[in-house]
């Protein structure tokens, strides 16, 4: 079957400023697709191109087999309905009148137009039909505009950030509703900002970045932390909880990478530092950690590079070598107050080796109290700087005392 919408190498520029470049993707009938991307990445422009309101500078936008610029507006409105981002009306019209405007493209035959009240009932707000539009709340207005768009009876519904003005309950209700309409055969293409909603509701996502499609596919594949960091310039953490995946974010502007810190930790002694350092803009690695260790899980959520050994196993040669590599690449190695036993004693040895090769090594004084392998007695003499605890360590890092850390910025 031919795709409902097909974009082929679409370029678009406002005056001389390019907005979209080489956009190509297909939309099949019945799909439920989200468009995400930073502000100014061209999302609204893309939607306007599909609705034929804008004409591509190069390439073609094809809707139901016909290029958009060949449509008359009324025919276009029968193919594509759009729920705009901003909608208000300075005039005192009745909700019924506003909804009925959506049937304009269906001509004057009332049978072909459908009934405003039935449509509002479909959205669960039949009682609004005799109210004044100007008296409605933001959420109610959004539903009325959706009803207006649905009156067009077009097979494709475009939405431009329909949830931005809604509280969380209205947001969920709206997306449940869209999902339901999609189940009845409506193809939905929706711009949204909330990546967690995007993750939960949509079959596929288009990620736009600086006017190009950065990714297109199922949300789990598309919304990876690396992708989000590249596109939004933030740290994204993916958590799995009770069978659901969700994302959290912390700000870190692109280009502010400050240096690499390698953590020798385990048993939860490094989790706090990991987050603090990542949030402060450092690139953090860790190792060797056992899989399923608390620190290993935190590191995985944060998307850190780690040398990992099998659960409950002593550090093997391979992991040890990888760990050494990570330490060499780092500007600073920090050893937390991790309990040291024969299983992970090689991590201390690796740190000392890195120190010998010129990487500064700092350690939490608590380390020595938890040393059951007797490998940390001489570390201060070897040149490891000792700190009273995590707080002091962090402060020293922030002050930039790890000279090597700062010089690499």
């Amino acid at each position, binding site marked *: 079957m031919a795709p409902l919408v097909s974009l082929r190498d679409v370029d678009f520029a406002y005056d001389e400023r390019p907005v979209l470049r080489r956009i190509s993707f297909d939309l099949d009938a019945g799909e439920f697709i989200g468009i995400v991307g930073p502000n100014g990445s061209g999302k609204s422009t893309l939607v306007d191109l599909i609705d034929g309101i804008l004409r591509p500078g190069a390439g073609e936008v094809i809707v139901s087999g016909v290029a958009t610029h060949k449509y008359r507006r009324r*025919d276009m*409105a*029968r193919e594509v309905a759009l729920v705009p981002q901003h909608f208000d009306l300075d005039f005192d*019209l*009745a909700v019924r*009148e506003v909804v009925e*405007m959506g049937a*304009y493209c269906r001509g004057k035959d009332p049978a072909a137009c459908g009934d405003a009240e039935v449509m509002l009932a479909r959205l669960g707000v039949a009682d609004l039909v005799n109210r004044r539009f100007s008296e409605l709340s933001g959420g109610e207005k959004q539903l009325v505009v959706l009803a207006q768009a649905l009156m067009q009876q077009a097979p494709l519904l475009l939405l431009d950030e329909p949830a931005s003005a809604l509280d969380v309950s209205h947001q969920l209700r709206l997306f449940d509703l869209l999902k339901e309409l999609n189940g009845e055969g409506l193809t939905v293409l929706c711009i949204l900002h909330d990546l967690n909603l995007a993750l939960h509701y949509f079959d596929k996502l288009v990620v736009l970045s600086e006017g190009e499609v950065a990714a297109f596919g199922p949300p789990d594949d598309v919304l990876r932390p690396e992708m989000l960091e590249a596109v939004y310039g933030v740290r994204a953490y993916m958590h799995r909880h009770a069978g659901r995946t969700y994302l959290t974010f912390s700000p870190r502007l692109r280009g502010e990478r400050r240096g690499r810190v390698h953590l020798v930790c385990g048993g939860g002694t490094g989790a706090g530092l990991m987050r603090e350092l990542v949030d402060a803009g450092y690139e953090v690695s860790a190792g060797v950690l056992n899989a399923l260790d608390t620190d290993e899980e935190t590191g995985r959520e944060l998307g850190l590079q780690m040398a990992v050994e099998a659960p409950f196993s002593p550090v093997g040669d391979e992991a040890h070598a990888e760990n050494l590599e990570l330490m060499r690449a780092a500007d600073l190695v920090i050893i937390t107050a991790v309990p040291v036993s024969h299983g992970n004693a090689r991590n201390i040895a690796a740190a000392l080796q890195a120190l010998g090769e010129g990487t500064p090594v700092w350690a939490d004084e608590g380390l020595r109290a938890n040393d059951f392998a007797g490998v940390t007695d001489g570390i201060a003499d070897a040149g490891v700087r000792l700190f009273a605890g995590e707080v002091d360590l962090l402060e020293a890092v922030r002050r930039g005392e790890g000279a090597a850390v700062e010089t690499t910025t």
Partner: protein
Amino acid sequence: MTRLARTGTWPGIILAAGILAGCLVLALAFGPVSLSLGRLWELVMAGPVEGDLENAIFWQIRMPRVLVASLVGAALAVAGVVLQDLFLNPLTDPYVTGVSSGAALGATIGIVLHLSNLPWTTVLAIVGGLGTLVLVWMAARRRGRIDIFVLLLAGVTISYLASAVVTVLMIRASEDMYAIVYWLMGSFSGRGWPDVRIALVAIPFMAVPLFFTREMDILLQGEKRALELGVEVERTKRLLLVTAGVLTALAVSVSGIIGFVGLVVPHIVRLLVGPGHRSLLPVSLLVGASMMVVADLLSRTVISPNEIPVGVVTTFVGAPLFVYLLRRGRRV
């Protein structure tokens, strides 16, 4: 504020038509010579008769004057509705497009050249008005689209330019100054059947917007939303702008510049029947006609036998009414 005609289109239209009929009767009956209702009926039935003074007053003076006033009022009100809703600007009136100033310039040239009032001064006024519309249009057209805000600015600018030229002409031809000023102030004094014939041309143009009430409703949501809903926005806008321009030019050419009707009537009617054009347009047409007929009646009776310029009357009546309605109504 509650609406009078929330329930349908026809009650409002019928009520407004009744009011217009009443205003027409009043305007035909009163004047320096008052006529009773019975006498009015006799005169209507008799038709124009030679040698009867009352018959001559009724058929040759009052009837054409009242008809011109009602047609001009209706034309300005319809143009006002169209322009306010196309510009989405409540302060717009038929004169912002520059059409009236262009028409005034045309008429002034006619007066200065001592051309006959009919047809030449009127023709020059129409040419001036429509010429201005074309100029403003060209200024506002960018890549095949009409930029409504540029149109507004260009209209205001060209208005000033035309007014400046009129002023220069008035100073150069000081003996015609009185005639020019009087024309500019607007009046229905001495309008006869030839003027009625010109004003009648406005009727088909008044009808044009009535075929676009759905499009105009949808355009209240903005041009982009109208495109999304399937309206051929550019075509509709062009047609309606030209219609409003022609209506304004015709009105100004037979009556001079009469302020406030085109601004106030759409607002008053919107507050009464709502912004839906199926009611707003026809009711505005009828109310505009009524208001102009009453204003003309007042202008020729209040300080009879002298006349107050009708534009002064419309402003005196319209301004307080407008302020009152603005304060009572929530939205315009």
